[in-house]
């Protein structure tokens, strides 16, 4: 997360939920106040830097409790020992279970001392007390807490988004008291798949909004940050198009080339800056039980959830490591209720189901309460709207099946035989394809499940669709796109969208306040972008040779979706997705240095012939 959504979305959800839970305003705060005592302390780290920490201990001191901790760059407000939040912990059941809840401002943020670093690089082998990272800060905090609270010696950590990263970062060389950790939508690798970039393509809209808030100046009291600038707008598409190049966004009126935003632009390849901020290589020899949580419709850190689970699974095979994936947006599982999203109606409150698992996870590992037999993977299957359990993730009983793009906009399992066949479109950076239909000032959080009929109407979007399915097609596992392309430019982006086309007679919801037209609805299931110059290496980008056919293959993470009988499977390919992604000048260069004059039209071809059979690989489960 990253993203305002921690601040703007999650916080309100939590507050809102407590209001609902206790049915009257202030009741949540009252419950916390009645049942917990609060202390605010500065905990010293090994290098002398002190971190601001809020500790909530149960008033009932008849027994020792485990510690459940969240480390955050978004503040452990409300500040003041007489100020109480509407809820403690990741869900309200856990609050009622009685834990010592600890919130800590990470190094350099809010009321903590020291210098903040974006995604603090992990140091596996520390040489001195000056070698600090989030693992050592967590370690030192826990040391102090164990000595200074009435605890049972067990510690758990959790966090969503950026706090999810801090949960992950506690794992390498973890303090032995840490027994259970739940990284939820953890920021994991900001060049390859989370927040800042996906496959090297810059997430302009999110970065612009997030860093302008997050990276502003801290006030003296340390309880708030001043936004770097205030860019009012009603239409993000138009605003960013008029803003123009990244260079302009980096100008004095906006980021002035400084701060984290400036760093993200200086590092326009997968260089040591980004590699040092990839937590995955450090997730070795992990001891605490891990419960990774992610959302299918998480616009920020879906990658992080799946790839964190994967890294632990591969590098710490003996670890008690499990994953839960549901049809959530970023952090939506922490709210009180999740029954519908976009045009989806899940039929029940999925958060109740999830939060029950979360509660049992911490209760078992930190309190030794009950038992906990969660399978390796618990995933919500969209399309059929049901929870599924698998002994491995991704499941092993699937057949990776290429669906070939074909002539005449078809999609099928037959490898094309024609000697030449391609679709062609002109990608014009001055008229990029919008990522959403309509006028939105901020990111439309529903864009990942939006009806793609609007996009199909653009001449620079190519669409391929299967025949009507004669039986259900269960796609569960990892997706991959393999494109054979050429361009008249020397760089290009490729966005691949996997879409479920509903039947023409699909009924509309009743009531239908959003006025969804469900017949023929083209519901996006997954989309991913790839910046073409990284096709062979993220570290060493390479230009395209104009007109030369090249393969661009990339990973699209996992899904669990059933394309029902009577539906169609659709794939769309396009080269812009604006302003979610910055515009590629379509000329091989350092994009943050591009001038407006560098942005050029390119004629792009997507091939589907015998030698160049572009396809998307779907993991089909029998």
């Amino acid at each position: 997360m990253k993203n305002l959504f921690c601040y703007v979305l999650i916080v309100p959800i939590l507050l809102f939920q407590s209001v609902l839970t206790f049915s009257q305003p202030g009741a949540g705060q009252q419950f916390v106040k009645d049942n917990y005592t609060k202390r605010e302390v500065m905990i010293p780290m090994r290098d002398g830097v002190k971190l601001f920490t809020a500790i909530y201990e149960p008033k009932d001191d008849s027994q020792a409790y485990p510690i459940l901790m969240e480390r955050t760059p978004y503040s452990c407000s409300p500040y003041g020992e007489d100020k109480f939040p509407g809820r403690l912990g990741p869900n309200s059941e856990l609050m009622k279970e009685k834990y010592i809840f600890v919130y800590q401002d990470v190094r350099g943020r809010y009321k903590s001392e020291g210098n903040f670093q974006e995604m603090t690089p992990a140091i596996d082998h520390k040489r001195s007390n000056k070698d600090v990272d989030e693992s050592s800060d967590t370690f030192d905090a826990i040391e102090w807490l164990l000595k200074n609270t009435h605890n049972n010696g067990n510690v758990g950590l959790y966090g969503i988004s950026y706090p999810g990263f801090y949960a992950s970062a506690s794992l390498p060389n973890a303090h032995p008291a840490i027994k259970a950790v739940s990284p939820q939508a953890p920021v994991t690798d900001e060049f390859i798949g989370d927040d800042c970039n996906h496959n090297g393509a810059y997430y302009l809209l999110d970065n612009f909004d997030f860093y302008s808030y997050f990276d502003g100046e801290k006030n003296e009291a340390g309880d708030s940050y001043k936004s770097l600038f205030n860019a009012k707008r009603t239409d993000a598409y138009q605003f960013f198009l008029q803003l123009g190049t990244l260079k302009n966004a980096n100008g004095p009126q906006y980021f002035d080339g400084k701060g984290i935003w400036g760093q993200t632009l200086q590092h326009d390849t997968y260089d040591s800056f980004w590699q040092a901020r990839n937590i995955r290589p450090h997730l070795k020899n992990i001891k605490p039980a891990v419960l990774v949580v992610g959302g299918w419709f998480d616009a920020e850190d879906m990658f992080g959830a799946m790839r964190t689970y994967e890294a632990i699974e591969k590098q710490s095979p003996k670890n008690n490591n499990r994953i839960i994936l549901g049809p959530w947006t970023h952090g939506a599982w922490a709210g009180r209720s999740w029954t519908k999203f976009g045009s989806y109606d899940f039929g029940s409150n999925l958060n109740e189901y999830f939060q029950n698992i979360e509660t049992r996870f911490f209760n078992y590992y930190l309190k030794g309460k009950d038992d906990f037999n969660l399978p390796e993977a618990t995933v919500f299957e969209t399309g059929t709207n049901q929870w599924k359990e698998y002994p491995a993730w991704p499941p092993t009983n699937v057949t990776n099946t290429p669906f070939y793009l074909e002539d005449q906009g078809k999609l099928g399992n037959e490898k094309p035989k024609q000697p030449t066949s391609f679709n062609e479109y002109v990608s014009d950076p001055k008229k990029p394809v919008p990522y959403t239909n309509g006028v939105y000032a901020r990111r439309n959080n529903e864009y990942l499940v939006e009806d793609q009929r609007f996009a199909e109407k653009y001449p620079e979007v190519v669409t391929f669709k299967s025949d009507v399915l004669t039986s259900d097609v269960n796609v569960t596992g990892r997706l991959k796109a393999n494109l054979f392309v050429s361009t008249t430019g020397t760089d290009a982006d490729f966005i691949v969208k996997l879409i479920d086309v509903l039947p023409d007679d699909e009924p509309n919801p009743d009531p239908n306040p959003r006025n969804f037209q469900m017949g023929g609805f083209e519901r996006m299931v997954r989309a991913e972008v790839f910046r073409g110059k990284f096709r062979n290496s993220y570290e060493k980008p390479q230009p395209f040779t104009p007109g030369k056919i090249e393969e661009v293959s990339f990973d699209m993470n996992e899904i669990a979706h059933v394309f029902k009988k009577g539906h169609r499977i659709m794939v769309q390919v396009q080269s812009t997705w604006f302003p979610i992604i910055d515009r590629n000048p379509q000329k091989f260069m350092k994009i943050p240095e591009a001038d407006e004059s560098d942005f050029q039209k390119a004629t792009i071809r997507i091939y589907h012939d015998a030698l160049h059979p572009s396809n998307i690989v779907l993991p089909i489960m029998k």
Partner: protein
Amino acid sequence: MLRKLFPLIFLLIPFLSVAQSNPEDSAWIRENYIKKEVYIPMRDGVKLFTSIYLPKDTTEKHPILMTRTPYSCAPYGEQNFSPRLWLSHYRYYARENYIFVTQDVRGRWMSEGQFVDVRPFIADKKSNTDIDEASDTYDAIDWLVKNLPYNNGNVGVMGISYPGFYSTMAALSGHPALKAVSPQAPVTDWFQGDDFHHNGAFFIMDGFSFYAGGFGYPRPQPTTIGPRSALKIPTNDNYQTYLQIGALKNFMKLTGDSLAFWKDLYAHPDRDAWWEARNPRNFVGDIKPAMLEVGGLFDAEDCFGAWNLYKAIEKKNPSSHFNKLVMGPWYHGQWASTDGTHLGNVQFGSNTSFWYQNNIEIPFFDYYLKGKGDISKLSEATVFMSGANEWRQYEQWPPPNSQPTSIYLDDNGGLSWNAPVTKNDFSEYISDPAHPVPYTEDIHFSRTREYMDDDQRFASRRPDVLTFETGVLDNDLVLAGVVTADLKVSLSTTDADFVVKIIDVFPDDFRYPGARPQPNRGVGGSYPMGGYQMLVRGEIMRGRYRNSFSNPEPFKPNKIETVKFNLPDISHTFKKGHRLMIQIQSSWFPLVDRNPQQFVNIYQCDDKDFIKSTIHVYHDATNPSNIILPVLKN
């Protein structure tokens, strides 16, 4: 002209609120009126079904207000009263004890005879078998004034849309009892600008949904039951459905060969004698009754007819003849509704429909049919000025102080009042019939009426839409009158369409008084009006008709040619702080059929004939594309 649907569906919705606030009116009507259904014989023996609502009042004689319609004078049965009498402004006429007459035109519903769409007027009738809509109206009026008790011998006719056409035809009847006629959004020229074609381009969605939706079905016997569409096509997304059906030829396959007029449309792709016979403007000389043409600035169907019927009558009759024009900020028929406050997202600041009903229409008929009141103050043209949101009165339309002023397309998407000085400068786009520009952004099936003032931001984003805009205006820019597009273009193929859109770009911080700011368009949130690109006027020209509508000519690939055409008249103030934008594109789908972009018979060509065309719109010293705007001085 898709009038059939409107009275039933759209007009009823606003009526309901009135029904609640005037619960006494329905009972009052039933207490004070009786209904009669009669067959009135025409001169050739054919009888036309006619519903008559007679006031019970016998203290004085009453005028007759008649509408002739192809959409039925339902409800049938003398016990069944039309709710229009108490739900619409008809109730004001009812309080004045007007006699209401509705007649099924020849060949429709319960009337005998054969229906002919926009039946040609016969100027020189030689016998009783030479009948037309004018003679049918004459015969009906004659029977009514001779047979209805307590009529005062004065007859008025009005009608909206297709009934507007019958109103025009009534005016040509020459019956001396006919004193006042109000053709409203009158179907006038189905090749040039109303309903089914604009400048020769086929309005496929309106045409197909209208004729194949039931209107065009044969009616062998008089009936009270309307036809049901037998079409089985997906009705989720008009764009997709119409694109999938493809070439016009394929639409004909779907309809079969029983829709006579649909076949006629296919048989007359160009403006020929057949079309001229169906253009009432050719026949409107020597009109006796007082005329009041009414129309909507944002009428998706018959905006052309309202402006141009007025102009034709003006031209062909002496200045002493009473002929007035009213244009409000309305969708098709909105002036007869109870809500004239807004259309789509755009607000008009007051209930313009009420104002019109009470200040213009009712006084007009009261004066001519009852001798009541004074209409000497009614101006020649009463035209709403959108943008400024006020009614304007003019002594002449177009106003004499409206100066045709060119605004030139510029490089870099600008607009300038000065002609360009650059050499060989153009904007380019590829028009791809496989991906036509949608006419509106939302997924829906029935053509919206709001597209006429919709936000065009969705179109600005497309690579096949050219956008030119002024800077922020320092002063109000007031436009009133005729708009002409004067494009200098070349294409890589032999035909193309050109759509020109005149757009008011609202300031970024714009919001209507009382509206709360809505930075995020959430569920149920109001539409984001900051930066709104309001379509004020849009029109299409089928390129092959650039020199003549009757003799189409191919383009020579890559040769620069002039495509000059009129848009419907405009009345809009671009307020200080706003911008003026012009968009140019070559498709407007599925409002308008796709041009194959080759010089072939579009009604007969195949799917494979539709090809991409690379289009250049020039804006240099030699070829300065420009839009001639009617700038109103002082």
